[in-house]
């Protein structure tokens, strides 16, 4: 059985020394280096904004605003947190503020009042084995994954995106969204299992079937 560490992505260590150097230089006033500093994270910043706003042009707007805000406040960044996490947290704040501003309070209220369901029973037990990451080279696969994610309720989608795509930890996810650690865990469980169900159904319908790997070997 694979160790959990194989699954859960670890923060990239290699880029750190170079990144610290870049941060220090931007903090000292070398503004032109800022884009170089944030370029590795631009996709993550956009994805975080999109997860919350679900609209491409709003997400791009917020991504740009968040980057500008990070630039303006770069001196407040302290090395004890990861730079990427700091950037994502700024983005989430910006996106949540925009949504609060644009959505009616009533809608927000209704959405949040729904009960948390901690027990979720998987529905699909299709024969899943490790799906190689090469599958993601196919646009069709990426689109199906994105559709499945978009079909989740907001509260599950946001937690899933921040934890499993943006790689924030549970505590950081809770802080960014202003919810409890327990809620993050509950929603994360449900989001992961729902996605698994949605994709397992796809597996049975054969949309993974043209993938270039051998089928039929059971993992057990």
């Amino acid at each position, binding site marked *: *059985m*694979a160790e*959990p*560490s194989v*699954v*859960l992505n670890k923060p990239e260590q290699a880029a750190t020394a170079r990144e610290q150097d870049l941060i220090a230089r931007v903090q000292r*006033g070398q*503004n*032109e280096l800022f*884009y170089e500093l*944030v370029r590795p994270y*631009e*996709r993550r910043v*956009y994805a975080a904004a999109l997860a919350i706003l679900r609209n*491409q042009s709003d997400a*791009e707007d917020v*991504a*740009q605003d968040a*980057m*500008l805000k990070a*630039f*303006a*406040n*770069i*001196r407040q960044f302290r090395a004890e947190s990861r730079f990427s996490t700091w950037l994502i*947290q700024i983005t*989430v*704040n910006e996106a*949540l503020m925009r949504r*609060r501003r644009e959505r009616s*309070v009533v809608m927000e209220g209704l959405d949040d009042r729904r009960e948390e369901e901690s*027990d*979720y029973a*998987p529905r699909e*037990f*299709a*024969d*899943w*084995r*490790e*799906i190689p*990451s090469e599958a*993601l*080279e196919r646009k069709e696969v990426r689109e199906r*994954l994105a559709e499945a*994610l978009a079909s989740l309720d907001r509260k599950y989608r946001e937690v*899933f995106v921040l934890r*499993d795509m943006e790689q924030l930890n*549970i505590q950081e996810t809770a802080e*960014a969204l*202003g919810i409890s650690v327990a809620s993050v865990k509950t929603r*994360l*469980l449900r989001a*992961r*299992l729902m*996605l*698994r169900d949605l*994709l*397992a159904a796809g597996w049975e319908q054969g949309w993974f079937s043209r993938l270039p790997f051998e089928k039929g070997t059971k*993992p057990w």
Partner: protein
Amino acid sequence: MVNREAVNCEQVWHEISNYLEDEVDSALRTAMEEHFRACKRCTSVLEGTRNVIRLYGDERMMEVPAGFSRRLEKKLAQSARVSSSRWSTWSAWLVPVAALALIAGGLRLANSLIINQPLKTEHAQPGHDIPPDMLVVVSANAKIFHVAGCEFIHNKDKVRTLTAKEAIREGYVPCLRCMRKYLNTASAAQPVSESEANADMGAEEEDLHSSGR
């Protein structure tokens, strides 16, 4: 061999996410591993959940619209040029702006005294457009309420969450920075000595002038 710690499928599903986070204790981990060896359905759920985490965690799942990087770079370059040509740094920028704001605020204050207008402060007119049920945070020993995560919160460790309506009732005033979009007009000199307020008044300076009669 009978395992006292045996877990059933429902318990496994309930803990599977924590298991993958490595957040279960060792007794539960052992029991779950034993269960997976015997239960094909739960193994399938485990493998599928792993696939989900691994596939979505891949950078390729994060696509940006065409031209996104170019537009972002351009925007940042503009901003970098502005801040390096006019002022050497952001903090240096704050000083003259804060000073200007104080002068502008002072003039406005003097004006309103001369023409005998009632002073309008944030206390008298807390931002009308703030949704009353919006959740805001206040911190100990401060008189300002903020959007959660606003970087101008003092004493971030001691924040309390409440609705905007309650905050206003308790005498807190909106942070001009994070609540700016809800405040339809900037009011006159705000008697708050915090540097954040000064910086904000700088940002609101234009409004001050345009609202002055």
